[in-house]
């Protein structure tokens, strides 16, 4: 947010959502989902802003933001890897996929690579159990993974990124 009193575009979009939700605390989750879509995560000042706009305490907003796994309090990388650790994926070897990804990127679950390219998040179930083990990078799903296949996919993203930078 800028220092002056004018509102930037993101803020105006959030205001629209607040308006649509009637500034109602009962719609807090929907409001926070919208805020996260706008900002990519939930910055502290937005938590305070939403609290003021809905008439509830920042602590309660924070309580909701930390309760649900969807909400993030820190920015994520350009590519969010959601690695499924549901039952079917577990049985079919999600654990070794996680090890391979972590080793390749040098990060753990919940972290972001230093170059800001990848974030890793393990999730309970993506619902593509028949293709297990599965991961989703942004909106693209990749099934029947092996450690090598997972690493190759990450390298694909990397080279696409490097190609883009050259062009």
């Amino acid at each position: 947010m800028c220092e002056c009193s004018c509102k930037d575009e993101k803020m105006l979009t959030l205001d629209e959502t607040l308006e649509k939700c009637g500034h109602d605390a009962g719609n807090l989750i929907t409001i926070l989902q919208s805020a996260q879509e706008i900002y990519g995560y939930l910055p502290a000042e937005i938590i305070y802003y939403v609290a003021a706009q809905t008439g509830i305490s920042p602590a309660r907003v924070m309580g909701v933001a930390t309760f649900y796994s969807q909400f993030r309090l820190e920015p994520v990388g350009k590519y969010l890897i959601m690695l499924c650790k549901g039952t079917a994926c577990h049985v079919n070897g999600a654990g070794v996929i996680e090890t391979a990804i972590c080793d390749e990127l040098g990060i753990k679950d919940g972290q972001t690579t230093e170059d800001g390219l990848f974030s890793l998040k393990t999730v309970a179930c993506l619902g593509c159990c028949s293709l297990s083990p599965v991961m989703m990078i942004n909106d693209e799903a990749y099934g029947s993974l092996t450690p090598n296949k997972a690493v190759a996919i990450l390298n694909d993203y990397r080279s696409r990124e490097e190609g883009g930078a050259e062009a």
Partner: protein
Amino acid sequence: MRLVVGQGSCGVAAGAGKTYAAIKALMNENDTFELGSTGCIGMCFLEPIIDVYEGDELVKRLVHVTEDHAAAIVDAVRAGELDRISNLFISDDDASFLEQQTRIALRNCGIIDPTDIGSYKARDGYKALEKVLKTMTPEEVIEEIKVSGLAGRGGAGFPTWFKWNAARQSKGEEKYLICNADEGDPGAFMDRAVIESDPHTLIEGMLIGAYAIGASEAIVYVRAEYPLAIINLNNAISQARAEGIIGKNIMGTDFSCEFRYMAGAGAFVCGEETALIESLEGKRGMPRLKPPFPAAAGYKMKPSNINNVETFANVAWIILNGGDKFAAMGTETSKGTKVFALTGKIKRGGLVEIPMGQTLRHVIFDIGGGIRDDKKIKAVQMGGPSGGCIPEHLLDTVIDYKALGATGAIMGSGGMVVMNEDTCMVGMAKFFLDFTSKESCGKCVHCRIGTKRMLEVLTRIVEGNGREGDVELLEELCISIKDGALCGLGQTAPNPVLTTIRYFRDEYDAHIREKRCPAGECRDLLTFTIDADKCKGCTLCARNCPAAAITGQVKTPHVIDNEKCIKCGQCIKNCKFGAVQVM
């Protein structure tokens, strides 16, 4: 001729979107065939799938269709000679997966276009709602559901009519009907398939329920991880509203009902109905003390009724075909059909809807085709984190709420994860406790701390640090959580541990006493070595080792560096000479 591409989430993940686009790109204005989309047929193991229709008749099902097949398909269809692509035809064996099913909740899945209300109406869509609104009283609707014996498909199996009646009898002008579409059980995806592939059947079932209890608003609480389901549901709501099926004076009658959805934000506990209500109200999803039950004081403290997606998906069929026809299927205590998500080490994984009363063995071997790689089945996990593992010797148990409950597992929402001899049952118990300890909402001490302590004990067992008496300690913790947790999820959290101890005690003992994992899965208890006599030095293992832990020259025996080895087992899979050994 019409080509219909299955584009449910599984299909898309397998590449159905690319297949569709490739065919579309090849079509021109002279082509007389059409290209369409449908949802999930439930044969996930064959995705991407294309159905070829002649009028309303399905003439061929093409499977494993990638974008590379697009040109051949278009050529064959143009020439009217489908036999040219006979390599893509479904085999009789695979086709039996569907032929052995009885589909009620999934009756339209993979057949209709989920984005088109006309497609739903063409298959008797909204006729049940019309019948209800124009010819039946709410009491008659509840009676019909009572006759059907329909029970909650979310897991608990509570009679649907009873909940509807309680909400109907509750005093108050403002009532709510809520659908629990927060399918949190990892390994279950039938609700997602219904919403994605047949959203109008959910809307119709809910409106009938709303009429029965006297609700003025119906709300779907849907899992945020299901983006396609949300898009299709949102679109279906708009279409239904445009046709006067949602809103004021529905179908010209006195009945009015609003309809909306809310996306959840990721919390397993929100599958519990009072936690779901808290979440709907914008709060942390923590269960409420019951009573008052939601039927008396639920959403906004008004009378509310909550059912699961699959429950609602049966309602329109019951109204049109009669409750007695539904009740004619199944067993004495469990009526109708149930949908299962068959996954894990199974040959044919996907959605299976069958009448209650069939055996687990029938589902796994006759429908599912048995175990992948012809290995031996060890157990089947049912009911997810609230359920348990049923061992091989009990596979003749029939699918029935009572019979499954007697094994220590539960019917659950329908996740059926098959495990073979390579799956460690202690590891399985740890997997679920890891899940429940993270997902515990924290309200009750026994659940919040008890699951953590259980996870710690299970972790030390699989890491080879288990102690004598750990199993007894786990059992003690299980009992205290069962007794001390407020909600159903907390009370059932120990089930995966209790059932694995009950049926696989020997595996626990092997980990604790011999520091050995009989399934060869617990990595800390394994060492990988290469038998120098068997190794031909083909380098395949070294080239495919993700950790670069294998070294050796061509045609000389290779060596594994155990410091670097991540014990992923890739070398075993790749070795053609059986030289890699695990101890």
